[in-house]
């Protein structure tokens, strides 16, 4: 086993463990902090895949912005610390079964995909990934439409959130 695989396995275990803690932690703030660890694990996975841009974007957007938003949302709810009720309801076994079925199905589908057997072509030497991404984002025969649509989508999200969350008194 190479060092890469060992690092990947540790990262995967930490990420999954943190994800389990997210749904099982009693305190909501603890859940949020575990979620941050899980998201960080994803960032490390990106780094292992030699995708530096996605690594930093994962940290900036997910840890720096989304998890902050979640912590805010949690602190805005009333009495976060007093919640001592049971962590699960009666349907817990059904949820467990469904998630196992879903996971198994996905794993089976992916195992039949031949993409796993073939090694990915290596990037040509001297190509800056970020530069290539930048060119692709705005060139007409690549992703220019999604790029601009993303902007409009985010604008819609901003307006929507203002309309929903901001009631004029």
């Amino acid at each position: 086993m190479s060092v890469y695989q060992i690092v990947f396995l540790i990262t995967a275990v930490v990420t999954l463990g943190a994800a389990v803690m997210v749904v099982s932690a009693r305190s909501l703030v603890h859940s949020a902090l575990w979620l941050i660890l899980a998201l960080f694990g994803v960032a490390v996975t990106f780094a292992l895949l030699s995708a530096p841009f996605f690594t930093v974007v994962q940290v900036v957007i997910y840890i720096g912005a989304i998890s902050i938003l979640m912590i805010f949302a949690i602190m805005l709810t009333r009495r976060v610390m007093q919640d001592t009720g049971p962590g699960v309801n009666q349907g817990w076994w059904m949820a467990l079964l469904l998630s196992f079925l879903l996971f198994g199905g996905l794993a089976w589908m992916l195992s039949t995909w031949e993409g796993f057997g073939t090694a990915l072509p290596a990037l040509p030497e001297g190509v800056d990934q970020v530069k290539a991404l930048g060119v692709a984002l705005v060139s007409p025969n690549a992703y220019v439409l999604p790029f601009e649509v993303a902007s409009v989508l985010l604008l819609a999200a901003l307006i929507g959130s203002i309309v929903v969350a901001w009631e004029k008194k």
Partner: protein
Amino acid sequence: MGDPINLIGDWLRNLMTGWGLPENLATFILTVMGVVVMASFLLILDIALVWLERKVVARFQDRIGPNRLGPFGIIQPFADIIKLLIKEDITPQGADRIIYNIAPLFALATVLMMWAVIPFAPTILGADVNVAVLYIVATGAVGTLGVIMAGWASNNKYALLGAFRTVAQMVSYEVPMVIALLIPVLLARSMGLQAIVDAQQPWFILVAPLAAAIFLVTSIAELGRAPFDINEAESEIVAGFHIEYTGMKFGLFYAGELLHALTVSALVSTLFLGGWRGPFVDQVPILGVFYLFVKAFLIYYVIMWIRYSFPRLRIDQMLGFSWKFLTPLALVLLILTAILDKAMEGATPLVYTLVMLGMNILLVWATVQVLRTYARVERRRVAERRPVATATEADFKELIGQE
């Protein structure tokens, strides 16, 4: 010509491969040693910063500052450290113990992490990654998380208020900061800090002075230093997020803040003041370290100057300053820089610099005009008679009669 650091590194590598160690293991050991050396260097520098900060603030306030221990009081920080080490560590009741103890680690560790990508000299640099600028933003965001954790876990209302204010601040100032950072990236066509330094002929402070100013202001806000220190405003929320911390845990927050200030100074120097650039640096690379720190301490002095000269902003003023002033300004600057840069493809560096500088000056002039108009309107609004003052006597009688 090489520099001593790389010479020692190569010597050690040869030594280790000479012993029969595999190449990968030698690289690993050397990297660990590099990290340890860099972090130790920074922490020693941090101790010096304690002294510097106290001495400079004393001069600003017409005092002498530490002057008892050693010449000019330079042994004072060591005495401070011993005091912090032997102080009793108190965990307040009801605190969330684990988070409470991890938070100070975050405060210092994230600041240390930032230095991993800052080039010290043409040949001395931790990690030359091609996303260094966003890496800096990312570590800064994780550092904010430490403050939130500290404020939340302390089980103290002031601490929680401090954490909330920190987040409100960070949330507002990161937007103009990220836009301002985009400008040197655009000018250098790279997110790697080494590439940005290489591209600085002339220094970017001449091409994009406004971006430098916006970045400095937003960085001070992210530092939580005066005039943006509402997250630990002594007169309002006592000390904010670190109110319950004692001894070395408080010391880590303090050390983290000081080192963060120097980190920001080093970043401003790297992004806008040419980093390690200076005379003879191509012949003697180690001089770059000297130039970088001269520039960094210059900016550090400016940060201290701002800190001790301006009163604290109110939270509404602070948020307004970011969202209604810095963000639109940074966006306009970004658009103008992008268009002009494309329009001037192939221009000589002199023409290019002059046009960019002229655009920045014009933009500052236009901004000042807008602000003056706004101030005039605002003054008129404040000066005009208010409805309360114009209420007639009959209205008062009616009000009293209703009671």
